[in-house]
């Protein structure tokens, strides 16, 4: 019963809109900006959440990280020994051994110690974080080497004086030369550089595993134990205050992602028994990942609402113009009705005008919404990510807005009394 092909109606719609080009463009702007805003905001939001998800993933979603922290209530509780305030806290070797021995489903337990030291290459100096590491450190953390090799089992056996340096250390100490094979001074001892780490994404430090200034130096765990003893004294410059910490981090790799959360709970109970002061913190990248996903979802919902509001405003703009259009063209409607147009024909005619408006607006908005974030990305280095669904969604919504807000004016047009409409001046 559809007497009019879609093509002819769209053509008619285009023609009528082209007749009032300025007005059509102004009406369209609402939709253009609405759609552009949705696409751009979603692209930026998706980009941000993608980036932080990648960061957390690089920490390994099968990992549990346990970190020594100073218990909040006692900073200077202990009597000073050797005239230096000293606090003993944190994870111990015993903790690591207990975990390895008692908890099921653990792949690797990897203890890490660290100490802040001055690191020298002749007269060049950097304040670095010396980390006692095991050969499987890379495999567990997912960090990568830039050049050379990491600490080996041979190094561990021999307690070799070798080190792997972070990218910032390389930049500072060896700005113009290849550091591999060179000797640097860490604290009082000399170490040969065997490898250079790849820089870590900024922000990865938030999970507590690594600092993101890339100023780490890795030495064999056994070497550290031999040279620094069982505990490490941290002397903060100003106050002659020392902390005695046995292990700074324990890295637990779980065999199966499913087991991460139950195992984290078991670790919590285990540690709580030996650490009533709660001088540790458990970090679960998987959980962080889920939190980020959740907040990304929230973000999308908020964006969606903003988008809905701006598209609503655009839609109301369209409706307003179309109502004016109907009034202005009352006589034309009367003529068309007298010449045989049915209500349906008039409805389709006006509806196709709004749909053309909103779809063209939607296409322009898509273009703008894709261009803007790309420009932003180009100039700020911000990551943007376009997903097919966000493009389809915003385009679909704009077309739907045209339909919904076009229906009432079209209905009004179709239901004009032909005789009255013909008399209209």
């Amino acid at each position, binding site marked *: 019963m559809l007497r009019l092909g879609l093509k*002819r109606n769209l053509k008619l719609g285009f023609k009528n809109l082209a*007749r009032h080009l300025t007005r059509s463009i102004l009406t369209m702007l609402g939709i253009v900006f609405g759609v552009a805003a949705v696409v751009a905001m979603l692209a930026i939001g998706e980009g941000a959440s993608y980036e932080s998800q990648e960061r957390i993933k690089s920490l390994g979603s099968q990992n549990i990280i346990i970190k020594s922290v100073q218990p909040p209530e006692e900073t200077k509780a202990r009597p000073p020994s050797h005239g230096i305030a000293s606090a003993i806290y944190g994870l111990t070797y015993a903790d690591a051994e207990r975990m390895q021995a008692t908890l099921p489903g653990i792949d690797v337990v990897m203890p890490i110690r660290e100490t802040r030291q001055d690191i020298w290459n002749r007269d060049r100096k950097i304040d670095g974080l010396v980390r006692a590491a095991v050969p499987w450190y890379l495999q567990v953390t997912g960090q990568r080497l830039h050049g050379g090799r990491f600490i080996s089992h041979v190094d561990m056996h021999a307690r070799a004086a070798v080190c792997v340096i972070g990218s910032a250390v390389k930049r500072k100490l060896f700005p113009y030369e290849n550091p591999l094979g060179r000797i640097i001074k860490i604290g009082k001892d000399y170490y040969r550089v065997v490898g250079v780490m790849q820089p870590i994404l900024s922000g990865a430090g938030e999970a507590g595993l690594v600092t993101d200034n890339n100023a780490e130096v890795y030495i064999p765990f056994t070497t550290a134990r031999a040279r620094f003893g069982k505990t490490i004294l941290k002397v903060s410059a100003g106050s002659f205050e020392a902390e005695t910490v046995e292990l700074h981090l324990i890295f637990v790799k779980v065999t199966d992602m499913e087991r991460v959360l139950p195992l984290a709970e078991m670790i919590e109970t285990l540690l709580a028994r030996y650490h009533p002061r709660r001088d540790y913190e458990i970090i679960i990248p998987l959980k962080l990942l889920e939190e980020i996903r959740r907040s990304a979802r929230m973000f999308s919902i908020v964006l969606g609402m903003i988008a809905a509001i701006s598209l609503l405003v655009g839609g109301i703009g369209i409706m307003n113009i179309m109502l004016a259009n109907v009034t202005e063209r009352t006589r034309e409607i009367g003529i*068309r009705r007298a*010449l*045989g147009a*049915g*209500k*349906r*024909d008039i409805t389709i005619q006006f509806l196709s005008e709004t749909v053309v408006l909103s779809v063209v607006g939607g296409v322009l908005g898509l273009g703008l919404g894709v261009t803007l974030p790309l420009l932003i990305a180009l100039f700020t280095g911000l990551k943007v990510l376009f997903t097919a669904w966000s493009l389809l969604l915003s385009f679909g919504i704009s077309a739907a807005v045209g339909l919904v807000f076009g229906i009432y004016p079209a209905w009004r047009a179709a239901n004009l009394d032909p*005789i009255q409409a013909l008399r209209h001046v």
Partner: protein
Amino acid sequence: MSLIKLDHISKTYVLGDGDVEVPALQGVDLTVNTGEYAAIMGASGSGKSTLLNILGCLDRPTGGQYFLDSQNVATLDDNRLSRIRCRQLGFIFQSYNLIPQLSVVENIEVPLFYQGQSERRCRERAVALAERVGLSQRLFHKPNQLSGGQQQRVAIARALCNDPLVILADEPTGNLDSATGKEILALLDELNRAGTTLLMVTHDDHVAQRARRVIRLRDGRIASDHFN
């Protein structure tokens, strides 16, 4: 078989909240045969336009029966009436009623457009009709670039384009000077000679003289109906 048969058609307009009733037509009986040329006359307010609107299926009577080509159209719904207007009726208005943004050919095409004819067929027919009413030099002019007489010719071409059973004209020369009016009337005469049925409302006795039948209305009733 008569083309048009009105059986006691009445039309009462109700104003306001139903308090005031205006009887525009009160029991009109009328029969028109194919090929006739009839003028409808009467004082202002006597119901000529109301009658023509009902004949043109633009309006429905409040009483009586209307057979068009032996189909009772008084009770049809809006959609069916639109189809009848589209396929079987032609209209000519006093004020031309062309669509201002459309060109001459596009205006002529409108009824064919609503019949769903192909663009090419529409265009061919429109051009042929424009030539028939003497506008072959003005095919792509807009209505406001034409004189009143030319505009009315476009309207006539438009009324012809669907090969209507009858053309209904409401004071087609009312807005034209007498010379131009005569040209239009000559064109209508010619159409009638070629077989088109014409019903024309007019105030002008000279105009009515050209028709072969004159129907006079008074207060919504047929006062006289005679052949010249």
